[in-house]
């Protein structure tokens, strides 16, 4: 569980930390969208430089991001190899059965690799520099237009922030229960597949039981503090949009224009 870097928050302070979370959230998704605009060496190189620059100004160690790639390594390798050997081509360098190696294949495989790196780096950057609560606040404010179609935005936002609040708690609880069962002689990850699956019963049942009891206690506590249905409540955490967020958006638009230019060039 400690290996997963994506989705974690790292306390720190830099210009990226101070950006408005709504902006960061939108920019991340927007960036993942425009990654697909890149179609040649120059455009991929340009995007890679941009991402590396963002990592640089976030003042977070690049090694941390590279470590974050590790859990995804197999997926990346699989996709890259698939592209490398299965791209049809008229003048292959090497040919054997269904496998074809060509310059086209190599080119596309390296693009795919860079694309993975870009997407993983930029989303890691979002979660490392934004607290979970800020993310759920920004989801709420981005979903707000959906109120028109009677979508329960405030309830969903509350659900999200409770869920996010309880992720670390449940991780702690899981570790604790695992330790307790280990002390009682359970070996996780040993023996055959069925045995391994069975060894998770002593974790899952206590975890369900404690989740339900936490939910029940929390509901009572919220009611006793005057919570009714989420409507008509004020907001304590106010997000503030500032000039640097405008600049960040402007940079994204600039990048899109440059990409479109390089692409058609």
């Amino acid at each position, binding site marked *: 569980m*400690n290996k997963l870097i994506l989705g974690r928050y*790292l306390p720190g302070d830099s210009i990226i930390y101070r950006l408005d979370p709504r902006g960061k959230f939108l920019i991340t998704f927007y960036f993942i969208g425009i990654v697909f605009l890149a179609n040649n060496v120059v455009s991929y190189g340009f995007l890679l430089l941009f991402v590396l620059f963002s990592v640089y100004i976030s003042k*977070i*160690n690049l090694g*941390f991001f590279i*470590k974050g790639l590790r859990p995804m390594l197999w997926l990346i390798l699989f996709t890259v190899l698939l592209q490398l050997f299965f791209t049809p081509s008229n003048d292959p360098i090497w040919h054997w059965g269904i496998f074809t190696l060509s310059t086209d294949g190599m080119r596309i495989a390296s693009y795919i690799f860079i694309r993975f790196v870009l997407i993983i780096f930029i989303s890691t950057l979002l979660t490392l520099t934004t607290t979970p609560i800020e993310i759920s606040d920004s989801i709420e404010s981005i979903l707000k237009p959906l109120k028109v179609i009677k979508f329960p935005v405030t309830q969903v936002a509350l659900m999200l922030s409770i869920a996010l609040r309880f992720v670390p708690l449940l991780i702690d*609880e899981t570790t*604790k*229960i695992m*330790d*307790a*069962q*280990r*002390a*009682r*002689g*359970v*070996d996780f990850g*040993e023996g055959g597949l069925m045995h391994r699956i069975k060894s998770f*019963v*002593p974790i899952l*049942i*206590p975890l369900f*039981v*404690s989740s339900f009891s936490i939910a029940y206690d929390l509901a009572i506590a919220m009611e006793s503090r005057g919570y009714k249905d989420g409507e008509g409540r004020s907001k304590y955490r106010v997000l503030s949009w500032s000039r640097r967020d405008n600049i960040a958006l402007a940079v994204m638009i600039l990048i899109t224009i440059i990409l479109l230019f390089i692409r058609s060039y």
Partner: protein
Amino acid sequence: MEIIFKNVTHSYEANSPLEGLGLDDVSLTIHDKKFTAIVGKTGSGKSTLVRHINALLKPTSGSIMVGDREITSETNNKNLKPLRKNVGMVFQFPESQLFEDTVEKDIMFGPMNFGMSESDAKESARKMIKLVGLEEDYLDKSPFDLSGGQMRRVAIAGVLASNPETIILDEPTAGLDPVGRKEIMDLFKNLQEQGRTVILITHNMDDVANYAEEMVVIHDAKVVASGKPKDIFNDNKLLKNDILTLPRSAVFAQKLAQREFSFPQLPITISELTTEIKRQVHGD
């Protein structure tokens, strides 16, 4: 089994930006068949320390000898069962580890993992449920139908059922009522007197004074004192630096000392206090 910590350091998430020191160069001996209390503030490293004894955590550097078994950073995760069978561990709020559909099965879970036969495990469950102060007919109930205190007893029975030589208790009486507290503590004292090593983590200094023979004080991931409770509670340096608080009897004695009483050594239990007061009032 004597437990010896040799220069044990443990850091959480080593080599990452989130690194945190759990234990800092701890050397310590926990004597065989004694009742040892481990005290210290929240976050001082008590739980980290005891988790090393059955290799739930492994030291970043240094080693731990449990009997003739050595645990170092290279210790393999396989073959730990004999160690864990010998070191029973009651976690904080152990009721959260219950999962079987009957109390009996839950108590039998540990022993059977450690290779006890089903009939022996059943026998052990029957003995343990009585030992922790519940009737035998609780065996057929679901653990989730019990009260919090009863669940706690069942969980403790589940740990004791595999008959460990060393019992580690991480605040076993937290959240129990006064009677339940005393019963559970007396139970552990009895087990120790029958020849087991008991290690107790607690914030309750009265429990330390009443039950423990040895005491270890941890502060900021370091062991700052170890020895007999009476000596440690009389160590002014620890008290002054706010690392340790006194048992109620000692606090009372301190107040008496401001009047016409005087105590060369602070009494730490109620019986010591009363004998001392009687002696000084009657003057014999």
